[in-house]
């Protein structure tokens, strides 16, 4: 937006998306202007592109501890989730390996809508509950498994409350029983270590725009030997699993974003957690009355804070912060626009009013100590003001 009185934007919604790293933008630009060939072409210009494609695939595979041949580029996290859940279930049905899917109550809509689609197609779906701390308990999974369970899908880091789920335990439970396990790692990839060579994961969805890469590109890791029914038909790219001429600028940018994450992964979340803790501390000081923290503060993504301020409308707080130049959200950007309470917070057991008094702050590379103190001061000011306000 031009002409906004040069008001500085303080961006605290990094779980919705991230600004593209300038180094990534440079690679994207180079792929469009210089290495613009089709990687399927067999002359030099095509080979040049093929090298770019291969390099990016190696970057993504490297951060996952995967074989590059097991990485399939998609149009983003949503498509990867759809492919994993629908593709696997369709293939399982075809080969008679069962038609029961287990997922949870607080998955991203890319999963929950896929599950709904499968149910309409006659598949059976079980949704595991989330405990008040924001975790799916492994015992619940064990109880839900049936003879015809073909796939278990449970997210790694929840997009709204940042809780890190025990996916290694889930994966182990599945592997012992010969059931496939998929995790949606869109919120964790590039932030906390994920290693398919040591963790019992069969399918992993990842996305680029959450890690300072371009939008419209993501990938699905598919362990070798797993059958997926393709959802797109055409020229046979990406080993026929996801056909169509590759989104080369997106893929190259994704590769570069992953390379940068690889450099930072050991320290970034620790630093962000320090800032996040300062933010929580400062908000606790500036807000006069009750604050509820949604989701456990143990085993949680360092960048995530999700708070309820009972007695106010979260929408009014977010719009007031927006006027101050602070971008935060009420929950998933993919379900916002509506003022309905967050299904994730409801799944934690919050009542409707409390859920609607919540905001999510997710920190990232651009946030400074000064930003944190300013945001905490503004939140305190608005929450105290709105609480005195009689609706």
């Amino acid at each position, binding site marked *: 937006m031009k*002409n906004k009185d040069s008001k500085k934007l303080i961006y605290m919604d990094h779980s919705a998306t991230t600004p593209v790293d300038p180094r990534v933008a440079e690679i994207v630009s180079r792929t469009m202007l210089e290495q613009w060939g089709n990687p399927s072409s067999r002359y030099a210009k095509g080979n040049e592109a093929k090298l770019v494609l291969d390099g990016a695939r190696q970057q993504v595979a490297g951060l996952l501890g995967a074989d590059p041949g097991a990485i399939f580029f998609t149009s983003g996290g949503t498509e990867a989730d759809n492919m994993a859940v629908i593709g696997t279930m369709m293939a399982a049905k075809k080969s008679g390996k069962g038609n029961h899917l287990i997922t949870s109550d607080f998955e991203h809509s890319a999963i929950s809508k896929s599950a709904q689609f499968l149910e309409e197609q006659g598949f059976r779906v079980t949704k595991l509950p989330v405990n008040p701390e924001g975790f799916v308990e492994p015992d619940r999974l064990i109880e839900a498994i049936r003879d015809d369970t073909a796939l278990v899908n449970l997210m790694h880091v929840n997009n709204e409350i940042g809780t890190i789920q025990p996916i290694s335990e889930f994966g182990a439970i599945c592997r012992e029983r010969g059931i496939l396990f998929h995790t949606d790692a869109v919120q964790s990839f590039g932030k906390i270590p994920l290693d398919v060579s040591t963790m019992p994961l069969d399918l992993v969805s990842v996305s680029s725009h959450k890690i300072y890469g371009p939008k419209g590109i993501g990938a699905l890791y598919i362990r070798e030997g797993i059958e997926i029914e393709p959802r797109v038909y055409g020229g046979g790219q990406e080993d026929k699993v996801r056909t169509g001429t590759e989104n080369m600028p997106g893929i190259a940018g994704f590769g570069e974003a992953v390379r940068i994450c690889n450099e930072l992964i050991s320290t970034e979340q620790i630093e962000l957690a320090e800032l996040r803790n300062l933010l929580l501390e400062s908000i606790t000081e500036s807000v006069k009355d009750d604050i509820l923290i949604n989701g456990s503060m143990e085993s949680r993504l360092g960048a995530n804070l999700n708070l309820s301020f009972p007695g106010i409308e979260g929408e*009014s707080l977010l719009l007031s912060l927006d*006027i101050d130049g602070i971008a935060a959200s009420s929950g998933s950007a993919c379900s916002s*626009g509506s003022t309905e309470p967050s299904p994730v917070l409801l799944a934690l057991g919050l009542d409707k009013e409390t859920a609607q008094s919540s905001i999510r702050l997710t920190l990232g590379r651009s946030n400074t100590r000064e930003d944190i103190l300013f945001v905490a001061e503004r939140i305190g000011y608005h929450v105290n003001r709105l609480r005195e306000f009689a609706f």
Partner: protein
Amino acid sequence: MQRKGKRAAVLMSGGVDSSTAAALLKKQGFDVIGVTLQLWDYDSTNHRPQGKRGCCDISHQMDAMHVCDVLGIHHVVLDHRKQFNLEVVEPYGQSYLSGETPNPCVLCNSKIKWGSVLPKIDALECDYLATGHYAKIVRGKYGIRLEKSIDLTKDQSYALWQIPHQTLERTLLPLGNWEKKKIREVAHQHGFRNAGKPDSQEVCFIDDHYGEFLRDTRHDMVEAIGNGEIIDENDKVVGAHDGFFRFTVGQRKGLNIGDGKGPYYVVGLKPETNQVVVGDLNAVKRSGCVIREINWISFDAPAKPEPCNVKIRYNDPGVPGTIFPEENGSLTIRFNQPRAAVTPGQSAVWYRGKAVWGGGIISMGIKSEV
């Protein structure tokens, strides 16, 4: 945070008028925030046919966002779909089905814009609520009042009679001293992409005929009503119709009575027997009307009968009459000359000079005593 001046929330539909209202207020030094209300959900109702555009259509929201971007002001969307459905759309249908003819814009102004929206903009620390209505707020020595706009061809003061007096203090109507064609010029000067957009017409959530809307939204009730008779004032059957709610008192067209004795006018509706009563021009004339749900917006109720100018529908230029306030707070209006089409459910708005004195809903017409 430094506040640069009083903050005004301008309700921006994406049309030329509210866009220009935002521009004018910014020029006057207000800290302006553009607010677009989402009132109607086309995805879920699926009522609006493809290709047609309603006022809550995303393209209009984008127009408002574009204008705010050009002006360098903040833009927010407030979702008031639930309230709009409850306070405007539901009563609208109810009114027709009880044999009356509603003014949904009046309800939207009082219940939504000057109703549920006010606490929302309070929460955003706004001092004023502003709209692109053609009407004036005049702050004078006799207090604050609502007046007609100087462009009488565009005057919208009629639709504002129901907003509470105490909200006038917080209201800005920057277009009241402007002519419409000048407003378009200002919009063009700012380079607003919606500067040439046609004026909105009719009821924003209705595309074709309200009868079709009622059939779609209250299907069972409308089916149960079915077809009925058109009768004259002596109960003689002169025709047939497909539901009394499709007719409005004073209506002449669409009756299809072929007895050659016309023209016929709708004189009354009988919901209990699903009958439409018709008569000649004389039969549809009324010397006055009984008013309910009265709001004294600019001045208090007088102690004795007072002359005034009365409008009984949106495009009515107004006629002279007298208001008779009753002890119990109710009100009767007498017109100096009997009027045709005094329609129950419509708003009657009485003026003292240019000022909107008060308004109310017409309960029934009073028959001429000739």
